[in-house]
């Protein structure tokens, strides 16, 4: 059987923070195949954001092996093998929409003409034509997040890491951006790892949902999502969609109960923001 080499491969990854003796992640094993859309879901504080940052070499694991595109996570970062989107858009206030999107291209030393052409493409993709000259504070939250997605996609990344990118948005915007993201994912054929709190969102978007347990974060279950592609608004109405949502919810509940930890569900942000 010849399977393609995984894009991301995690072996027995553990992360603990010496301060407070917090074990954020324990014994994580996960392979992500090319073209997959994998969601990480779990209660607050389960370390899913930390796991994403470990893949991106923004946080170092305490132990375990992380391989991205067949090399170390650090090398993959230095080779700019992935793009990351955070929960808050992280736009630079002093740059216009166009120049925010162009930032990674500037760092790659693309020339001006090539940058402009790509920015135009990206602006069209996220439907922000006409706003190129606006500054971030002149945009709504949803538009800002679309800029940050356009920026992440500006240099066609083979691997896209997304940390609750739509978490702060209203339901309508969220569903629309979900659909956009899927369209982009299909077009680009990239691999996505997506952290979310929302069960329907995870089921709607993913080919696989990874359910994580409360701290210390472990992989409690993996749910294969066999909904047909492409997914549309109708997908959310299908009985199979509801079955899968229920399945994920049950796994989450099990994961929550089989841990003795009664620690309050804060701390995820704390863990994510711990300086590397």
């Amino acid at each position, binding site marked *: 059987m010849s399977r393609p080499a995984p894009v991301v491969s995690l072996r027995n990854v553990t992360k603990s923070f010496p301060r407070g003796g917090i074990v954020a992640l324990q014994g994580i094993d996960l392979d992500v195949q090319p073209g997959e859309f994998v969601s990480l879901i779990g209660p607050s504080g389960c370390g899913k954001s930390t796991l994403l*940052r470990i893949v991106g070499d923004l946080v170092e694991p305490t132990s375990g092996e992380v391989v991205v595109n067949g090399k170390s996570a650090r090398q993959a970062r230095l080779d700019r093998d992935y793009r990351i989107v*955070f929960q808050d858009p*992280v736009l630079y*206030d002093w*740059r216009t929409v166009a120049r925010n999107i162009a930032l990674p291209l500037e760092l790659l030393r693309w020339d001006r003409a090539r940058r402009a052409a790509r920015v135009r493409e990206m602006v069209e993709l996220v439907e922000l034509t006409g706003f190129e000259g606006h*500054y971030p*504070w002149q945009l709504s939250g949803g538009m800002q997040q679309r800029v940050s997605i356009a920026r992440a996609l500006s240099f066609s990344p083979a691997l896209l890491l997304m940390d609750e990118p739509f978490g702060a948005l209203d339901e309508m915007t969220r569903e629309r951006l979900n659909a956009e993201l899927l369209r982009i994912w299909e077009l680009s054929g990239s691999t996505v790892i997506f952290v979310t709190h929302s069960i329907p969102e995870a089921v709607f978007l993913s080919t696989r949902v990874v359910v994580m347990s409360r701290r210390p974060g472990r992989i409690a279950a993996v749910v294969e999502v066999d909904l047909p592609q492409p997914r549309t608004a109708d997908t959310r109405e299908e009985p199979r969609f509801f079955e899968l949502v229920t399945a994920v919810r049950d796994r989450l509940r099990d994961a929550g109960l089989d841990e003795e930890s009664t620690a309050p569900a804060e701390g995820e942000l704390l863990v994510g923001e711990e300086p590397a």
Partner: protein
Amino acid sequence: MSRLRRQAEQWVPAAVVFVSGIALWEAGVRGLDVQNFLLPPPSDIAETLWSDRRELWSASFFTFREALGGYVVGCSLGFLAALVVSRWRRLQAAVMPYAIAAGAIPIIAFAPITNNWFGVTGMASKMAIVAVLCFFPMMVNAARGLTSVRPSSIELMRSYAASELTVFRRVRLPHALPYVFQGLKVGTVLAMIGAIVGDYFGGAPGALGVEIRRWVGIFAFEQAWAGIVLASALGIVFYAAVALVERRTMAWHPSVRGARAE
């Protein structure tokens, strides 16, 4: 409504206050027959501003140069100190409390001392006190700007494999710009105060602070008042010039653009 008219409407109330303030002053002094050494009428001051313009201007310009020289030195050193301090977290923790506390010290009280150190009649002693005055606000503001970047902004740059230098140039520095300008603006006011008060404790003949004291001593109150008016005007122009540069360099900033987003 046209832009011009909107701007005019913004300025009119302030202009009305200015004009009526002057008129009230003039009428009050004349009507109540206030003694000249207490408060001369504005018309006399204006007359003196014109008749003694050469002497007044040269004195003001001399002191303004003291202020400007000290300002440039103090702000530059303050910014450099902020760069160094913001680079190492430990150093920052050790040093910043004192830099902030320095804001509560009446540094101007040291002016007689710097006069002793750098010579009463030279410009250097006034520049020194001005530099010290400008140093701390610049250092504190710039350091705050350089270190208040959100962690995710830095993480994003790391995900692009950006070097420390690139992160500094593309993120830390532009992020710190509004803070730096805050330090620069505060500095303009302190610089004028420092230079004139430095002069009061003794300075070169022909310096504005020295002249104001001399005029008061020989009961030339119109001259003294004219000097104060000119010093104030220079201070305002100095501040406005820096504010203008700020507007030009930070067109992106909401505070500059005015919240016009729809």
